């Protein structure tokens, strides 16, 4: 399986378990079904956005999507407007996802047709989509508490005791993405391109088509996340998931992807999302100083990567050095 740093996934998984264990030692009730599902529910949207970001980043060659938060905001506003105008809710949901895909298409066009470096292109569209979300909503949040119950269930309901969006959206998506990224020809081409775009181009890979697809997918996933957020909160907000732009990148690299592309896996992304969710929720729940939360994300990011470097690089070398020293002696 290409692009799958099992080491990172292992460390992160262990880390999440350890943290959860620590919190549970402080307050065992954190392991209740309520708390576990809350943890998951609040992380789903960011997790889905991070999937899209992961696809984009895997394509490499500087690919990045800074507009994910803005896309999810505009998408949820559009979906909400449609639904409140009386459009059937499934059509509204589709509209949100398609709007996201269309915005991703704008990014793709700017990057592959007009050759604007991805970071500038998506920075520009981030400003633009955020502005459009404000314009479309008139600067107000849109009240969806009166929307069809089925729609709200997308964010608030549960199936077999598991939150709807986890069981019916997130996990299937995870499976699908594993298939796409690790088993499909598209995924292979994506990783090849991410590793060496020039070589991939010369090996006959449709580089632009490939990259455009990742941006469109990222847009669609952001749109979906926006719609879920709207359903969960019963409210569409024009600032959507504002922290998603940078945090989604952090999650993807935390999950083991290289920012230069050609690496990373949806499983890693999912575990990274989980680790962050556990820590954030656990800090609240165990009544830690709320200011600590501000830094947790960063501490995890830096520490996990440092630990991994130690395990992968320094330790084996130290051991080898010790061994050879013993041999000499």
């Amino acid at each position, binding site marked *: 399986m290409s692009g799958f740093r099992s080491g990172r996934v292992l460390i992160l998984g262990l880390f999440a378990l350890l943290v959860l264990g620590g919190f549970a030692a402080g307050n065992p009730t954190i392991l209740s079904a309520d*708390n576990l599902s809350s943890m998951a529910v609040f992380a789903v949207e960011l997790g889905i956005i991070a999937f899209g970001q992961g696809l984009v980043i895997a394509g490499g060659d500087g690919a990045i999507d800074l507009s994910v938060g803005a896309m999810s905001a505009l998408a949820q506003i559009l979906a909400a407007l449609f639904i409140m105008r009386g459009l059937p809710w499934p059509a509204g949901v589709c509209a949100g996802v398609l709007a996201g895909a269309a915005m991703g298409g704008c990014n793709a066009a700017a990057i592959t047709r007009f050759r604007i470096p991805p970071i500038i292109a998506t920075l520009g569209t981030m400003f633009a989509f955020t502005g459009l979300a*404000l314009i479309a909503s008139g600067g107000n949040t849109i009240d969806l508490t009166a929307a069809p119950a089925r729609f709200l269930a997308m964010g608030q309901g549960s199936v077999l005791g598991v939150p709807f969006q986890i069981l019916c959206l997130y996990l299937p998506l995870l499976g699908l993405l594993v298939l796409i990224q690790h088993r499909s020809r598209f995924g292979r081409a994506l990783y090849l391109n991410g590793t060496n775009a020039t070589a991939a181009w010369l090996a006959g890979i449709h580089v632009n088509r490939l990259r455009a697809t990742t941006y469109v997918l990222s847009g669609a996933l952001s749109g979906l996340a926006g719609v879920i957020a709207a359903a969960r909160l019963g*409210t569409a*907000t024009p600032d959507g998931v504002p922290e998603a732009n940078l945090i989604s990148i952090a999650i993807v690299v935390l999950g083991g992807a290289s920012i230069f592309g050609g690496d990373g896996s949806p499983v890693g992304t999912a575990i990274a999302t989980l680790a962050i969710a556990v820590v954030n929720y656990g800090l609240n*729940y165990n*009544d830690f100083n709320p200011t600590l939360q*501000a830094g947790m994300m960063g501490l995890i990011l830096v520490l996990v990567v440092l630990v991994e470097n130690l395990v992968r690089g320094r330790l084996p070398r130290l051991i080898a050095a010790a061994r050879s020293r013993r041999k000499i002696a």
Partner: protein
Amino acid sequence: APAHGRAETFQIGFVPKVIGIPYFSAMQQGFLKGGRAFDARIVYQGPTTSSVAAQAQIVQSLINRKLDAVAVAANSPTALQAQANHARERGVTFASTDSQVDGDAVSLRVMQATDEAIAHTLVDQLAAQIEGGGQIAFVSGGPIATNLNLWISLMKSYLAAKYPKLELVSVQYAGEDISKATEITSQILSAYPGLKGIIGVNTTATPGAAQAVLQAGLSGKVAVTGIDDPNTIRTYVLNGTVKSAVLWNPVDLGYLTVWGLTQLLQHKALHPQNAVPGLGTIAYDATTKTLLLGQPMIFTKENISLDF
């Protein structure tokens, strides 16, 4: 871990819109003061940015902890309704304070002053400083802050009705960033050279606007007023850039919230008029379940030394 001490010690959670700003710290002081007075333990948790999603998560975790009550200064009137319903199901008393949550799952709302009163006071303060009318501008915080937007619209209609000579030429948003407010205000001053007055709609816009007016050398020529706490605006009141600022006492607001919640938790009824220890008589509206702290306060050179 929550300590289950004496049976009558209630645990009350307070989730501000955002932590790390003086206004909500003052409310926190009020909560702690109320906690001491009415025997409640206060849990203070909040998001580091005024984000709806982050706030919902924190409220949810407090409900899951089965505190006795949770009070929230909501970033959106609708987005926390799911949490309110959830709280009701689990027997957690849910209140909103400062910025309200809609819906009937909310057991108590505590308001600093009516929105109309705030909007009218702001406009009245500015109008009093501008002779003969002219152009004015609003500088607000985040473009989607519900209560700020409500005040803006109330101010607009009040202006139209009462001060036709004051012409609102621009409403700009600076987020919760004083520096940005300064920048935007100096741009407004350039765009409208005849500008007569500015209203800052939140506690970051007002000092920012004042700084820009001061830097442009327009102190006294362009009137600045707005919502702000005395600590933040003091410099500008003392140097004459700002003649008056409008706020209420956030400490009292927090204190009142604790009082109201402990009344509910002890199953004591709230009356149209209540004698609250330390606050005097407080009105209660049973149809909206709203406690009203009173009228907005006006800070001028005389009382700007107040500290909260």
